[in-house]
């Protein structure tokens, strides 16, 4: 829901003028901090942490109040001189969010261009504490140490302009090429960590990722083309217009890739299965369209995406090297919203929507006696709903209340062998309704308390309460300390609840309960200088009733909400941003995640992650973007170990040249390490390798007014 409520405290850094710090002292503390953070792979990690802490503590001006001499000096200046001063831009207001007062990361369109990220998954991989897994079908996201193999990103709420993208069959957050929007349409991405169910309901367990699209501008036409390794090619056409109170943005994209011609899987290295070589088994076809029309306060958005991807990994027992096994995901939605300013202190947002999703997945199988056949799983759902949200400012306090209703008009799940009647077909129409509220109280100076909760009622399992309390303390204009406690949940999806075909999945012994998380988090944010900020956060999460697919004595499996996990960790980040375009983000995340039932470490969970993203301007014409990502080793579902990964990506991008043209060239996995990805319980491989060094070239042509 695009509520246009500006984010407050998490980015409320009122840096007043330059830090009163000697440049040399500042340089020393920052360098020692970074070197300390980089010391994670040495034999003396403790020394590294100590150096980092020393660097931070030694930084002068940490606790002293900031002087205001600069502001007083500015007042004395003449208006002519004021127009000549060079300014540093503070963080922008964020759009529409019933904000979670925790650690927030913003990724801008400029960063997406300068780092050459191709999918939303690659963007998220650069974020502190986040890691991804790509099994050549979908991209999966791990947050704070938890990425359950065989999962579908159900514990992340993914939105576009506040509109939920998780589908109503699998509850999946689509992050790879299956993400329904072209990355060029993004203005910025708001990543809010922590439990968000107190305002948004299901799926908002680990993070809410809200993708905000670009605004329409007067008479603009854009065409862009990309070519990448393995004959990947993309074409996009975007048109935008503005007239009076009307504005519209229309865009369409097509992507095709042949994928690597030969993929080798050692698990199938036998003459009967082509010696482990899958030929032309990684092709990918995507078509997308997006429309955003506004008239005054009324907004209509619509998106559509269709992706066809062949599956090379012979998952779920399919025949190896058979191109008939593929995933086709179709996702679309229509969203109409209206914003009302009832008074300068009160605003009302109304939204209604209609969404659809279809999964079409044929798989080639071979059975003794039956021979070869193709079995199709076809899931289809459409759902519609309405939301209302009221925000009231009462002096220094702020109240938000709202309600939602959503009805899945039809969730149809089918399984059939091509040419035969369905062996399984079921139709359901669950619904949910919810009310929520949050108060932001500024009763004590320097302290903000945000307390709220949401009550959901599901036709499938009944009621669920998700409270959240946050205390935000601004020590001084440049330093903020937060503590957040919250409970969030993930309701069982239609797939878990209703798909009982008695061929592979049987009825559960007990009704499924929603998963729940209890989350505690402390965040420390500080501006070392107007252009340099640091964040440190620590968390302790406990998950209950995790829904798992468990094998039964009959040989079939069933879903049950029994598992329990806990995770705790600590993360550090330094971010620098200069007006010239020079920017860098360095982070280090440490996490420990365990299964509470048997005390075993969780699979797919790297204990340490270190990242560096840096952009440097090049001779006023463009930028060089460097990305260095390091993840420690992981256990796979089967108990084997996937070695540590080190990834280096480089992108050279240009500013607009000759007014209309922009170019970029990228190389991914420059060192050709061919990273390993752990696989899930339904894959015959315990891990597969990624593509190694690949390239992409991109050209775009734009006609229209000058972009700032």
């Amino acid at each position: 829901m695009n509520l246009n409520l500006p984010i407050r405290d998490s980015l409320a850094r009122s840096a007043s003028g330059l830090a009163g710090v000697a440049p040399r002292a500042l340089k020393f503390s920052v360098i020692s901090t970074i070197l300390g953070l980089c010391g994670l792979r040495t034999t003396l990690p403790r020394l590294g942490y100590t150096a980092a802490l020393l660097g931070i503590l030694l930084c002068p001006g940490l606790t002293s109040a900031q002087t205001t001499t600069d502001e007083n000096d500015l007042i004395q200046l003449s208006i002519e001189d004021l127009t000549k001063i060079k300014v540093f831009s503070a963080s922008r207001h964020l759009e529409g969010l019933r904000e979670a007062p925790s650690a927030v990361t913003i990724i801008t369109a400029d960063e997406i261009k300068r780092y050459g990220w191709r999918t939303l998954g690659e963007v998220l991989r650069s974020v502190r504490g986040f890691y991804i897994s790509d099994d050549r079908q979908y991209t999966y996201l791990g947050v704070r140490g938890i990425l359950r193999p065989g999962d579908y990103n159900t514990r992340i709420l993914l939105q576009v302009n506040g509109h939920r993208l998780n589908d109503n069959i699998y509850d999946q957050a689509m992050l790879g090429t299956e993400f329904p929007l072209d990355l060029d349409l993004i203005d910025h991405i708001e990543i809010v960590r922590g439990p968000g169910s107190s305002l948004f309901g299901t799926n908002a367990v680990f993070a809410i990722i809200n993708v905000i699209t670009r605004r329409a501008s007067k008479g603009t036409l854009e065409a862009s083309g990309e070519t990448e390794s393995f004959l990947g090619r993309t074409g996009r056409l975007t048109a935008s217009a503005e007239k009076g109170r009307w504005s519209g943005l229309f865009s369409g994209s097509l992507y095709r890739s042949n994928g690597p011609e030969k993929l080798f899987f050692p698990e199938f290295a036998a003459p009967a299965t082509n010696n482990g070589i899958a030929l032309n088994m990684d092709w990918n076809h995507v078509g997308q369209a997006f429309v955003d029309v506004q008239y005054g306060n009324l907004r209509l958005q619509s998106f559509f995406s269709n992706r066809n991807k062949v599956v090379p990994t012979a998952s779920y027992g399919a025949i190896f090297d058979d191109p008939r096994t593929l995933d086709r995901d179709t996702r679309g939605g229509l969203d109409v919203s209206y914003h009302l300013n009832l008074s300068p202190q009160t605003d009302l947002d109304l939204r209604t929507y209609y969404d659809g999703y279809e999964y079409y997945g044929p798989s080639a199988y071979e059975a003794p006696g039956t021979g070869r056949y193709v079995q199709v799983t076809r899931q289809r759902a459409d759902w519609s709903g309405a939301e209302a949200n009221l925000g009231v400012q009462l002096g220094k306090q702020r109240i938000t209340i709202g309600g939602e209703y959503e009805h899945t008009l039809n969730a149809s799940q089918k399984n059939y062998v091509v040419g035969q009647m369905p062996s399984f077909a079921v139709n359901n129409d669950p619904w949910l309704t919810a009310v929520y509220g949050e108060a932001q109280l500024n009763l004590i100076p320097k302290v903000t308390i945000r307390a709220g909760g949401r009550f959901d009622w599901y036709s499938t399992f009944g009621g669920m309460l998700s409270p959240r309390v946050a205390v935000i303390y601004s020590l001084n204009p440049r330093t903020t300390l937060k503590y957040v406690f919250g409970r969030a949940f993930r309701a069982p999806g239609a797939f878990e609840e209703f798909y009982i075909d008695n061929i592979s999945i049987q009825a559960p012994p007990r009704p499924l309960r929603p998963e729940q998380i209890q989350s505690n988090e402390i965040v420390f944010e500080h501006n070392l200088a107007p252009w340099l900020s640091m964040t440190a956060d620590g968390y302790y999460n406990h998950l209950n009733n995790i829904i798992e697919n468990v094998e039964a004595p009959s040989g079939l499996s069933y879903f049950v909400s029994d598992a329990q996990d806990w995770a705790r960790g600590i993360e550090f980040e330094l971010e620098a941003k200069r007006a010239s375009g020079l920017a860098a983000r360095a982070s280090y995340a440490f996490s420990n995640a365990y299964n509470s039932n048997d005390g075993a470490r969780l699979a797919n969970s790297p204990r340490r992650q270190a990242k560096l993203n840096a952009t440097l301007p090049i001779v006023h014409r463009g930028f060089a973007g460097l990305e260095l990502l390091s993840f420690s080793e992981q256990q796979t579902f089967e108990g084997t170990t996937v070695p540590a990964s080190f990834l280096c990506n480089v992108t050279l991008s240009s500013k607009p040249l000759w007014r209309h043209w922009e170019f970029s060239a990228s190389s991914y996995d420059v060192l050709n390490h061919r990273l390993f990805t752990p696989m899930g319980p339904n894959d015959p491989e315990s891990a597969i390798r990624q593509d190694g060094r690949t390239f992409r070239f991109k050209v775009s042509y734009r006609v229209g007014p000058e972009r700032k």
Partner: protein
Amino acid sequence: MKPMLLRLACALGLISLLAPLAWTQLVDERAVKAAFVFNLTKYVEWPQPNHELIVGVNDDSPTAETLKKVLDGRNSESRPIRVLLFPSDAQLEQCNILYVGHSSPKKWRAVLERVRNKNILTVGDSDSFAKDGGIVGLVTAGDHIQIEVNLAAAAEAHLKISSRLLHLSTIVQPTHEARH
């Protein structure tokens, strides 16, 4: 090999970042905007002489705090300035200047509608604020802050803007049709 490479890259990246630190001085744009608003009080003429200047701020970003800190209590041509954060409807009547910090056109159009024909100098910091009917826009363009003035809106509010200010500003034409 790998840990060394990573550390080296980190260090190089950060050192190259810090190198220009000693030479460029960048000022926080919020402080500059507050200074601009102060200057506006000197170069805008209200229809009636004012005993004090009341600046309403409809903005919950740090800019609001800076405005309050810098302007509250200061004197401009022997008129004390008072800053009101989030003025109520009644307080709006008394404002001489209204600083609108919302980033969304929907919000500031609603606010501008409210203060029409009221002799209030509306100031905003978003790109299309002046085009949309605001009187003065303080727009960050690249490294500098530029002034945009909507003369039609100023005339509607019966405010006179000194030629010294106009000389430094970009005059902006309103883009949308008159609202009914």
